[in-house]
């Protein structure tokens, strides 16, 4: 079973507040969550300094420019207070990540669930923003993007469960050409080049400007195309979690589904003995080059000195995926068909993709505004249009104006999204987490992706979710939770089962 998820760090703007205030403002916004939730998050179960290449770094790199926003005289808050972690009844995690409200979807096994959960995160964050705005009597806005146009970036990360059968070096070799070229359909589009680049350049990717390394464990500074963080959140002897940090946050449901569907197939492809017969000379330069290439030929240099187009690189992966996964399941079928169609249209006429890809939709909007208003492409207000595209408030968002006009293809219905706010994806361990929160929130002593600590009057007990990776075992566990008279009864059932 494929398992994947998305974590989105939202940009936040609070009327009258500056960057120095955003950590506390983000925390306050998350604390506006009004539904049932559990806490705290068990950070002791995580180790972001563990590297898949077989070593452990002493420290992670931090952005020195960002540190200037910290008040040197303020006393650090306890992590539990600072992060304001909320584990929700849909199995998701909602918290403050260093000045950004972050929503991490529960583990999803289908693309429809993934898109519904990602959009549910928008709705949950928006409800909190509205509540916070009412408290302050000021405007509070959230943006699903990855840059402030002034050199600060924040992530939209993806996670994919994969086997630990292959040496990581081979995985890295197989991933670099794929991630370098994925921006041609997964990019969210950005006006400008950072830091201090040309304002009038429209590029495909929000994030490309911020990568300086091919591979590393870092995420905050000197960011890599391939993140090597080794946190499986399940049995690490059998599994890896591929933590992808090079993607953009997508507003388009189609772009989200295509990005996750294709990457999931490529991850599955790399679990076999297949490797792409392509090696790039300089992936870090190439991803930036592709992002700003106004010719849309996207030719980049191979290690042998010859050039190859980004579409042709993607076709190498597509061809191998078709051979192995055609007819595998509905998501694989959809992904292979749409991947092929998208590459065809990117090659023939990218403007045909304005109803599916964020960068194409955003570029079309900007073009319309430039022509209507008689502006130059380096006009400062165009970045405000770019930002407004990513506003998650349907009343002010330009993306949602497009969607309301029927100009964007949908993957899920509004009913699917509303349902995902209170229901975890079926058949995943997120459903167990959500069910425990719904029924026993007050008795929960802590949560991580791999487990939930439950406290009875006499003992503390960890419900280990690590091995619930198939539908059948999840169904059994859910049945036990639903039928349990109380927590003592549940612990007895779980112990008997084990």
């Amino acid at each position, binding site marked *: 079973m494929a398992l994947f998820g998305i974590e989105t760090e939202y940009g936040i703007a609070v009327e009258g507040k500056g*960057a120095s205030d*955003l950590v506390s403002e983000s925390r306050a916004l998350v604390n506006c969550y009004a539904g049932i939730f559990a806490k705290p998050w068990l950070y002791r179960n995580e180790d972001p300094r563990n590297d898949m290449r077989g070593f452990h770094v002493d420290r992670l790199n931090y952005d020195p420019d960002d540190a200037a926003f910290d008040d040197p005289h303020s006393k650090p808050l306890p992590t539990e207070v600072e992060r304001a972690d909320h584990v929700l009844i849909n199995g998701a995690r909602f918290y403050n990540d260093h000045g950004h409200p972050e929503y991490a979807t529960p583990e999803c096994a289908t693309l429809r669930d993934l898109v519904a959960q990602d959009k549910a995160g928008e709705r949950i964050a928006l409800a909190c923003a509205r509540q916070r705005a009412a408290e302050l009597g000021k405007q509070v806005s959230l943006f699903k993007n990855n840059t402030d146009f002034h050199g600060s970036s924040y992530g939209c990360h993806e996670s994919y469960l994969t086997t630990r059968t292959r040496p990581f070096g081979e995985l890295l070799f197989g991933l670099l050409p794929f991630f370098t070229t994925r921006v041609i359909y997964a990019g969210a589009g950005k006006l400008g080049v950072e830091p201090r680049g040309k304002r009038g350049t429209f590029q495909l990717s929000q994030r490309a400007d911020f990568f300086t390394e091919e591979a590393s464990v870092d995420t905050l500074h000197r960011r890599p195309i391939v993140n090597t963080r080794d946190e499986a959140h399940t049995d690490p002897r059998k599994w890896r979690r591929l933590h992808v940090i090079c993607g953009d946050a997508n507003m388009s449901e189609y772009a989200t589904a295509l990005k996750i569907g294709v990457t999931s197939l490529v991850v599955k492809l790399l679990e076999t003995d297949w490797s792409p017969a392509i090696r790039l000379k300089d992936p870090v330069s190439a991803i930036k080059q592709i992002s700003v290439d106004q010719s849309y030929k996207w030719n980049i240099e191979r290690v042998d000195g010859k050039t190859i187009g980004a579409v042709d690189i993607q076709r190498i992966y597509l061809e191998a995926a078709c051979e192995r996964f055609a007819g595998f399941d509905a998501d694989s079928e959809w992904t292979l068909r749409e991947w092929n169609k998208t590459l065809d249209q990117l*090659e023939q006429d990218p*403007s045909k993709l304005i109803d599916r890809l964020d960068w194409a939709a955003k570029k079309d909007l900007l073009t319309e505004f430039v022509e209507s208003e008689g502006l130059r492409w380096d006009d400062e207000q165009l970045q405000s249009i770019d930002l407004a595209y990513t506003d998650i408030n349907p009343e002010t968002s330009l993306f949602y*104006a497009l969607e309301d006009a029927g100009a964007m293809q949908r993957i899920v219905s509004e009913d699917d999204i509303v349902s995902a706010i209170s229901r975890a994806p079926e058949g995943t361990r997120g459903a167990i987490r959500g069910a425990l929160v719904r029924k026993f929130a007050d008795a929960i002593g802590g949560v991580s992706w791999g487990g939930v600590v439950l406290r009875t009057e006499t003992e503390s007990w960890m419900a280990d979710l690590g091995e619930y990776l198939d539908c059948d075992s999840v169904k059994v566990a859910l049945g036990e939770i639903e039928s349990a008279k109380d927590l003592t009864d549940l612990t007895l059932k779980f112990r008997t089962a084990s």
Partner: protein
Amino acid sequence: MPTIDNERATRPAPADPTRRDSDDSGPTKPDVQRPDRSDLLKRMKRVDPDQARRYRQRSGE
């Protein structure tokens, strides 16, 4: 089921006279049919033009 055209993998992208290699003049308008977007233009005109200039964020992951 999608099929792969092996010849296409090495074929150069078709030339598009509307595209320009220089980024000085920005992207060109695509020639496609779109829904009525008059309301959309009104909404774009309502966007605070200084919104992005004021927008500063903490560096995240």
